[in-house]
C-alpha cells in the first residue's frame, strides 16, 4: 500500500517535475522574446535618437510657446473629428501677441503663428470650409462692404484688404479681397506680393467665381516684371492648356488669354557678368607684365610666427587679403583696416587712412584677439564707402569715441570716396558685426551678435547718417566663436527681393524678414556644418590649425534661391515665395557655390565644377591648385577666370578645359579676388594688388551652354 502510494507520489513528482521544466523552458523563451522586443525597440529608439543627436545643430530660431503648438494640434484633432465649433474655438484662443516666435510648419520650415493658422484653414475639407463661413462670413462681408461703399480709395484700404486676406480668406469674399489686394500691390510696384495674392486664389481658393484665366494672365504680367522666366513659362503653359479659347479684359482691352500671356515671355539673353557689357568678350593679356602694382608689405608677414600657436603663419591660419571696390575712376581697398584709394589707370595712391609700416602690429593684434581678416570689409554704395575696421585705440582716440585696446570688435565706418574722410561711424550698435553690409534703398543692413545675450540681430542703419533705424532678433547661432576666441565673421549672406530681406545665417537657418512690417515671415532650418570643437587640434607635441572653411552662399536665379552653408554637405534650392524646398543635393563639404549663370551653377573647392540646376548632374570638373582658398571666380562670356597660387586660369565654361594660365606678376601672395574695372583686371592678393590690361572684343558666339 505504502509502496503504491509512494509509487504514485513518485510518478506525480516526476510529472510535476516535467511540467515545471516545460514551464521553465517556455517561460524562458517568452522572457527572451520579450527581452528581444525590448532590445529591438530600444535599439530602434536609440538609432532614432542617435540620428537626432548626430543631426547638425545650428541656428536656434525663436519659437513660440509650446501651448500655441498644442492649440494648433487641438485644431487638427477637432477638425479630424469634424467638431468645427471646438476647432475654430481652439484657433481663436491663440493669442499671437503673448507669444512672439515661430511655429513648425513641416520640412524644416517655421512660420509665424498667423501664417500657420492660415495654412491650417486652407487645408480644411469642404464641410470645414462651409462651417468656417457660417462663423465668419458676417464679419468678412461687413469689412468688404465698407470698402465697396467707400468713395475713391479709402486710406485704410490696404490694411483692410490684408486683414480680409489674413483672417477671412476662406469666406465668400476672401477671393475678391485677395484679387483686389493683388491689383493694389501691382500698382504700387510690389509685383511679388501681387503675384502671391493671385496665386493664392488660383491654388488655394476652392470655389472662386473669379475668372481663373484672368488671374493667371495677371500672374504672368507680375512674373514678367519680376524677371522670373521659368515660373512665367510654367504659368503660360497652364494658360495655353486650360484657357486657350478664352478672352480676358485687362486695362479695358479684351485680349486673347494665351496669346497675351505668351507675349509677356522675354527673349533669352545671356546673363551678364559683373563688369562685362552686352556681347563683350574679355581677353586676358598674353604677357605677365602688369599695368601697375601696389605692394602691401606682404614680406613682413611671411615668416611671422603665430603668437597663439607658435607655428609659422600660413594661408590656412591667417589670410590678410584686401577687400576691394571700384568705381569709374578709382580702386579702393581695405587692408586690415588701412583703407586707401588708387587711380584705376596709373595705380597711383590718392589717399589712405593709415600707414602700412605697422603691418606687423596689425597682424599680431588680429591674431591675438581672434579678429577674422574677412571682417575688414569694403563696400561701395551710393557714393559712399562702408568699411570694417577697428576704432582708434590710443588715449586720444578713446576719448574721442575710439575703443579700448582689448575690444576685439570691428566697427562700421562710412568714408567719403573722394577724400577718405570719415562721414559717420556706427559705434553704438551694442553688437559685433558678423556680415558684410548689404545696402538696399539707402538702408544698410548688417547682421550682428548682440553683446548682452549672443543672439543674432538684423540691424537696419541709415546710409546717410549711420543711425540704427530698427533691429529685429533673428535667433541664436551656435559656435559663433572661432578657435582664437574671437567671433567668426562673414557667415551671413543677404538677398533682397520684393520687399523681403532674406538672411542666410551660415549656421543652419535661412530667414525671410519683411522690410515693411519688420517681422520674420518664415524661417527654414537646414543642414549646416557639423559642430566643431573650439579647441585647437594637437598632434604629437606640435599644433595643427584647422583647415580654412569654405564660405556659405546664398545666390538667386530666376526666383529660386540656392543655399549652402560653409563646410556643409547639402545644397538647397528654395522657392522663397511658397516658401518651400524644391530640392536638395549632396555636394562636397569642401565646395562652395560661387556663381550661377543661367541654368549652370559653379562650385569651387579643390576643383571648379559646373552643376546643371535642372538635371542636378555634374557637367564637368576642373582640378585647380591644392589649396582651397574659397575664391570667387569671375564669370564672363566664354570665359571663367579663377585665381590660384599658380596664376589666373582662363577656363572654358562649356567643358571646363583650361585655355591658358596667366602667371602674372604677383608670385608671392595669394590672390583672393578678381575685379573687372574698365579695361583693367585687378587681382587683389594678400601681398599686392595688381592690375593687368585686358581686351574687350565682340564675343564670337554667345548663348546657352550645351548641357550633357
Amino acid at each position: 500500500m505504502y509502496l503504491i502510494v509512494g509509487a504514485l507520489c513518485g510518478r506525480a513528482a516526476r510529472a510535476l517535475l516535467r511540467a515545471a521544466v516545460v514551464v521553465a523552458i517556455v517561460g524562458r523563451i517568452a522572457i527572451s522574446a520579450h527581452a528581444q522586443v525590448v532590445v529591438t525597440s530600444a535599439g530602434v529608439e536609440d538609432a532614432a535618437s542617435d540620428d537626432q543627436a548626430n543631426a547638425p545643430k545650428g541656428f536656434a530660431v525663436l519659437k513660440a510657446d509650446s501651448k500655441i503648438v498644442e492649440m494648433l494640434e487641438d485644431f487638427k484633432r477637432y477638425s479630424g473629428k469634424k467638431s468645427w465649433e471646438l476647432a475654430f474655438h481652439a484657433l481663436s484662443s491663440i493669442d499671437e501677441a503673448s507669444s512672439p516666435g515661430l511655429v513648425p510648419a513641416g520640412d524644416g520650415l517655421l512660420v509665424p503663428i498667423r501664417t500657420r493658422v492660415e495654412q491650417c484653414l486652407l487645408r480644411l475639407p469642404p464641410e470645414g470650409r462651409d462651417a468656417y463661413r457660417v462663423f465668419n462670413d458676417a464679419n468678412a462681408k461687413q469689412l468688404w462692404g465698407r470698402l465697396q461703399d467707400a468713395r475713391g480709395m479709402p486710406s485704410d484700404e490696404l490694411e483692410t484688404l490684408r486683414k480680409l486676406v489674413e483672417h477671412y480668406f476662406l469666406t465668400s469674399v476672401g477671393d475678391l479681397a485677395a484679387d483686389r489686394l493683388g491689383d493694389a500691390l501691382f500698382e504700387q510696384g510690389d509685383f511679388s506680393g501681387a503675384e502671391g495674392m493671385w496665386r493664392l486664389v488660383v491654388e488655394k481658393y476652392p470655389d472662386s467665381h473669379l475668372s481663373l484665366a484672368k488671374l493667371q494672365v495677371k500672374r504672368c504680367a507680375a512674373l514678367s516684371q519680376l524677371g522670373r522666366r521659368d515660373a512665367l513659362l510654367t504659368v503660360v503653359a497652364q494658360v495655353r492648356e486650360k484657357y486657350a479659347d478664352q478672352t480676358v479684359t485687362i486695362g479695358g482691352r479684351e485680349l486673347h488669354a494665351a496669346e497675351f500671356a505668351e507675349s509677356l515671355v522675354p527673349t533669352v539673353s545671356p546673363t551678364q557678368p559683373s563688369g562685362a557689357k552686352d556681347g563683350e568678350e574679355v581677353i586676358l593679356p598674353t604677357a605677365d607684365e602688369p599695368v601697375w602694382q601696389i605692394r602691401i608689405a606682404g614680406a613682413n608677414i611671411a615668416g611671422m610666427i603665430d603668437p597663439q600657436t607658435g607655428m609659422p603663419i600660413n594661408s590656412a591660419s591667417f589670410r590678410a587679403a584686401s577687400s576691394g571696390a571700384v568705381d569709374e575712376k578709382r580702386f579702393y581697398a581695405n587692408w586690415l583696416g588701412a583703407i586707401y584709394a588708387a587711380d584705376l589707370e596709373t595705380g597711383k595712391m590718392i589717399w589712405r587712412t593709415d600707414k602700412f609700416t605697422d603691418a606687423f602690429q596689425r597682424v599680431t593684434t588680429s591674431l591675438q584677439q581672434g579678429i577674422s581678416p574677412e571682417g575688414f570689409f569694403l563696400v561701395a554704395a551710393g557714393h559712399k564707402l562702408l568699411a570694417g575696421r577697428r576704432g582708434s585705440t590710443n588715449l586720444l582716440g578713446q576719448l574721442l569715441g575710439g575703443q579700448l585696446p582689448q575690444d576685439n570688435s570691428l566697427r562700421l565706418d562710412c568714408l567719403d570716396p573722394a577724400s577718405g574722410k570719415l562721414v559717420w561711424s556706427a559705434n553704438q550698435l551694442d553688437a559685433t558685426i558678423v556680415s558684410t553690409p548689404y545696402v538696399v534703398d539707402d538702408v544698410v543692413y548688417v547682421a550682428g551678435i548682440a553683446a548682452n545675450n549672443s543672439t543674432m540681430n538684423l540691424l537696419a542703419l541709415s546710409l546717410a547718417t549711420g543711425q540704427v533705424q530698427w533691429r529685429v532678433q533673428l535667433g541664436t547661432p551656435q559656435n559663433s566663436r572661432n578657435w582664437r576666441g574671437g567671433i567668426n565673421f562673414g557667415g551671413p549672406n543677404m538677398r533682397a527681393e520684393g520687399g523681403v530681406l532674406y538672411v542666410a545665417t551660415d549656421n543652419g537657418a535661412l530667414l525671410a524678414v519683411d522690410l515693411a512690417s519688420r517681422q520674420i515671415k518664415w524661417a527654414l532650418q537646414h543642414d549646416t556644418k557639423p559642430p566643431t570643437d573650439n579647441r585647437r587640434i594637437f598632434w604629437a607635441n606640435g599644433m595643427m590649425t584647422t583647415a580654412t572653411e569654405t564660405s556659405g552662399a546664398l545666390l538667386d536665379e530666376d526666383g529660386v534661391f540656392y543655399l549652402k552653408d560653409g563646410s556643409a554637405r547639402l545644397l538647397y534650392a528654395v522657392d522663397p515665395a511658397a516658401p518651400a524646398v524644391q530640392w536638395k543635393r549632396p555636394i562636397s563639404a569642401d565646395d562652395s557655390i560661387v556663381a550661377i549663370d543661367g541654368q549652370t551653377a559653379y562650385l569651387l573647392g579643390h576643383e571648379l565644377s559646373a552643376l546643371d540646376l535642372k538635371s542636378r548632374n555634374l557637367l564637368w570638373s576642373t582640378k585647380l591648385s591644392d589649396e582651397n582658398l574659397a575664391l570667387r571666380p569671375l564669370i564672363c562670356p566664354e570665359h571663367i577666370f579663377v585665381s590660384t597660387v599658380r596664376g589666373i586660369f582662363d577656363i572654358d565654361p562649356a567643358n571646363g578645359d583650361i585655355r591658358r594660365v596667366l602667371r602674372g606678376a604677383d608670385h608671392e601672395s595669394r590672390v583672393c579676388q578678381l575685379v573687372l574695372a574698365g579695361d583693367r583686371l585687378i587681382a587683389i592678393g594678400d601681398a599686392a594688388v595688381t592690375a593687368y590690361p585686358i581686351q574687350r572684343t565682340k564675343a564670337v558666339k554667345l548663348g546657352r551652354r550645351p548641357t550633357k
Partner: protein
Amino acid sequence: MNPHLRVFDLTQSVRSLATCIAVLAASLMAATVSADEGILVRGTGSATGRPSQIEMSATLSGEAELAADAMVKFHDAKRRALAAIAGLKDPDLSVVSGGVSVGSGTDANTQMMMMQGMAVPNTPQKVRLTETSRIVLVHTDKLEPDEMLSKVLKILDVAKDSGFQIGPVPARNYYEMQIRAQQGGDGSATVSFKLPDTSALRERAYKAAIDDAKSKAQRLADLSGAKLGRIISVHDEGVGNSDSDNASMVRYVYGMRSNKEVEDRSIAGSNSGDLTLGASLTVQFEIAK
C-alpha cells in the same frame, strides 16, 4: 613462422638501420667539419652608370559624396591631364598608369581627432577615386644637363597646371609623416632619375665584388701561411632596406602598400648625377693542401 627465424630477421633489420644512421652521421660530421675549414670573406664592388630615364609620380583623384560626382571629377581630371601631357608632343614622354583605387575619403582633421581619441563628428564618407601614374621621360642620357632640366621643369609645370599632383601624396597626419621619414629618401623626391636596366652594371659590380673577395682571401691566406684554394660557396647579400616594426604595423592599419616593388632591378636617385649599383658577396675559399 619459426620464432628463431623471426628473431634473426629482426636482428638483420636493426643492423641495417644502424648502418644507415652511422653513414648519415658520418656525412654530417664531414659537412660540419667542411664548414669550419677554409677562408670566409666578404667582397664588395660597385659600378656607376648615367640615368637614362626620369620618372615623376603623378596622382589624379576625384572625391565627392556622390559616386557619380566622383566619377565626373576623376574622368575630367584624367582626360585633361593626359591631354596636356600629350600636348607637349614629345615622343620620349609617356604616362604609365598604376591603376585606379576606390576608397573612402576622410579629411585630415577627422583622422587626427581619431588618432588623439577625440569624439569625431558623424559625417558621411565620401567616394574617392585615385590613380597614381608615372610620367616617364626616356633617353635622358642623351640630353645635355641644362636641356634635360628645362624639359623636366616644363613637364612639371604642365602637369601641375593640368591637375596632376606631382610627387608623393602629402601626409595626411603625423603618423603618415613618421612612416615616410622612416622610409628614408626613396619615394619622397618629386623627380626620380632612374636606370631601368642594370644588367651590365650588375655584371661589373659582381666582378668587382669577386675580385675584392679574392684579394682579401689571398691576403688572409698569405698572412696565415696557407694556400688559397677553390671557391666553395658564394652568398649574395644584395642591397635594400626593410620597414621597421612600427612602420609595418601602421602600414597594415592604413592598408598602405610598400613602395618597394618585387623583382625591381632598376636603380634610382634623386639627383641627375651617376647612379651607383653596389654588390656584396660572402665568398668561402678552400684552403688548398
